[in-house]
């Protein structure tokens, strides 16, 4: 029997959005309440019955700390961190730095197509695939990156065949992903993709003039679209996805970028900000860029919501990831918004240079002779790589539950920890939240999503729920 007369509070935090208070608990459940409710709950004031029921059902208050409901709470808490259960699932293979484009924002320090000594050896591939199978995860994703990985078709085929061979006894579920600019989808590449059901993840920055300007080529857009069409025809429409990077120029054109994706028949877009690595590191003013990106994101998201209201099913993927954290009991596999951080726990990178890195960004730092996040060689023992000294040091600072500026943040449960980004932008892996661009961007986007849910609930909730599938 639930008594509304007395209660205990359960762990929660609160944020103020447009004259409302939003209470958020450790499970990521949130509830919109009148301003001052958090204070009333702390003072154990009587609240009206309907509010009491909502707070009780959503684990903000309880009558009894030892009720069976606390077991349900604990089970849900475990589910929210279940990405840890099976350890590393995403394995990135950086085949080469060679590339056939000249992107203005290149984060990977790509080299000219004819460059030598910047591609992975077959020995490295062998060892890297063996290391991948050391992870106990029943689901493995083998993702090929570059440079432009399609310039190394023999290596792709060799890596996949090696994985298939080992998997005859391992019986894992393996997804193969090829991250390509789609310029060089040759017969050989398409044959590999068809044979092994390789997903194509391509990049398209928006309308023709913008994309070509970003890529430093006059015909890049035309070739990418031709590549996408070819891949869709041979592999199936849903085997091809695309993401964009908002360059300094791109942030000025949110509507045009979304419309281009819609025109080309995509059902989603991932609105991705520049990362401060490679050529993008030279961006003139990151504070200004972050502000512009936030405005860009909000305008693009508003436009996407309008498209959905007009009956077109179209997802913004970053929002969808955060909404899954807000509106479902499940965790997401997105490595950039995890705590403990995605590095090592969810992703490992096998670089062309024969070394293993904690994340994609970690290997990008290595191109500037910074090997802070180099975990070891592919020839090292797996345990020494994932449980070595560097991994253990990172483990002290990869939970946002415990780091300054994050631990008390009301939206912590929707965000993640990123020591590599902290290090690359602030020179310190622990990081300093008050002037972190990443914190500013994530906070603005998460708060905007909450604001939409609060202010336009009936309009946006059917749309947001449809994105959770």
């Amino acid at each position: 029997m639930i008594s509304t007369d007395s209660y205990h509070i359960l762990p929660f935090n609160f944020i103020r959005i447009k004259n409302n208070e939003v209470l958020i608990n450790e499970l990521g459940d949130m509830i919109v309440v009148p301003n001052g409710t958090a204070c009333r709950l702390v003072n154990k004031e009587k609240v009206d019955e309907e509010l009491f029921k909502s707070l009780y059902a959503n684990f903000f208050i309880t009558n009894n700390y030892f009720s069976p409901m606390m077991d349900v709470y604990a089970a849900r808490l475990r589910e929210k961190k279940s990405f840890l259960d099976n350890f590393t699932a995403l394995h990135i293979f950086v085949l080469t730095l060679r590339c056939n484009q000249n992107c203005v924002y290149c984060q990977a320090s790509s080299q000219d197509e004819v460059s030598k000594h910047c591609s992975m050896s077959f020995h490295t591939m062998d060892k890297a695939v063996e290391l991948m199978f050391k992870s106990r995860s029943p689901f493995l994703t083998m993702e090929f990156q570059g440079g432009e990985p399609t310039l190394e078709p023999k290596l792709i085929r060799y890596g996949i065949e090696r994985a298939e061979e080992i998997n005859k006894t391992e019986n894992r579920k393996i997804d193969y992903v090829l991250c390509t600019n789609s310029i060089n989808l040759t017969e050989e590449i398409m044959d590999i993709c068809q044979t092994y059901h390789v997903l194509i993840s391509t990049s398209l920055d928006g309308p023709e003039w913008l994309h070509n300007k970003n890529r430093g080529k006059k015909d890049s857009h035309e070739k990418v679209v031709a590549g996408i069409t070819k891949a869709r025809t041979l592999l199936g429409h849903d085997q091809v996805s695309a993401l964009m990077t908002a360059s300094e120029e791109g942030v000025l054109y949110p509507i045009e970028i979304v419309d281009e994706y819609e025109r080309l028949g995509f059902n989603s877009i991932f609105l991705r900000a520049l990362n401060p690595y490679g050529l993008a590191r030279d961006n003139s003013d990151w504070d200004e860029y972050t502000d512009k990106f936030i405005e860009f994101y909000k305008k693009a998201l508003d436009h996407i919501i309008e498209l959905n209201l007009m009956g077109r099913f179209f997802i913004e993927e970053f929002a969808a990831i955060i909404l899954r954290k807000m509106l479902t009991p499940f965790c997401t596999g997105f490595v950039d918004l995890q705590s403990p951080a995605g590095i090592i726990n969810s992703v490992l990178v096998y670089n062309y240079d024969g070394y293993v890195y904690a994340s994609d960004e970690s290997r990008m730092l290595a191109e500037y002779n910074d090997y802070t996040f180099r975990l070891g060689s592919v020839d090292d023992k797996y345990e020494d790589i994932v449980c070595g000294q560097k991994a253990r040091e990172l483990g002290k600072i990869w939970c946002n539950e415990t780091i300054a500026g994050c631990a008390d943040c009301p939206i912590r449960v929707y965000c993640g920890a990123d020591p590599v980004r902290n290090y690359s932008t602030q020179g310190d892996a622990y990081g300093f939240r008050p002037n972190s661009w990443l914190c500013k961007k994530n906070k603005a986007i998460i708060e905007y999503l909450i604001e939409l849910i609060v202010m336009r609930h009936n309009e946006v909730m059917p749309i947001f729920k449809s994105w959770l599938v």
Partner: protein
Amino acid sequence: MEIKVDRNIYSDSCISKVVYLLSKNYSIERSIENDYEILTIIQKTDEEFDINEFWDKMNDFKLREIINTETKDIKTILYAKAFGEFDNFDENDFD
């Protein structure tokens, strides 16, 4: 600018968290006089110091502190239940 904060009302931890949050735009020197903490605020940027926002933050962090203190034990138990291999807690384990 100087602000006097009563340490009988706001804890060191509460003040520290607000100072941390504001430290992008302001240098804040802290000193103790009897029961009061004196915060001397110097602008680092053009951003004017908003005294109302400061006290709003102070009160919010004080409230968060009360919630954290009151729920610390149950939070520990919930995390232990969720991630430990034992689930036989009872009232005797609760301080």
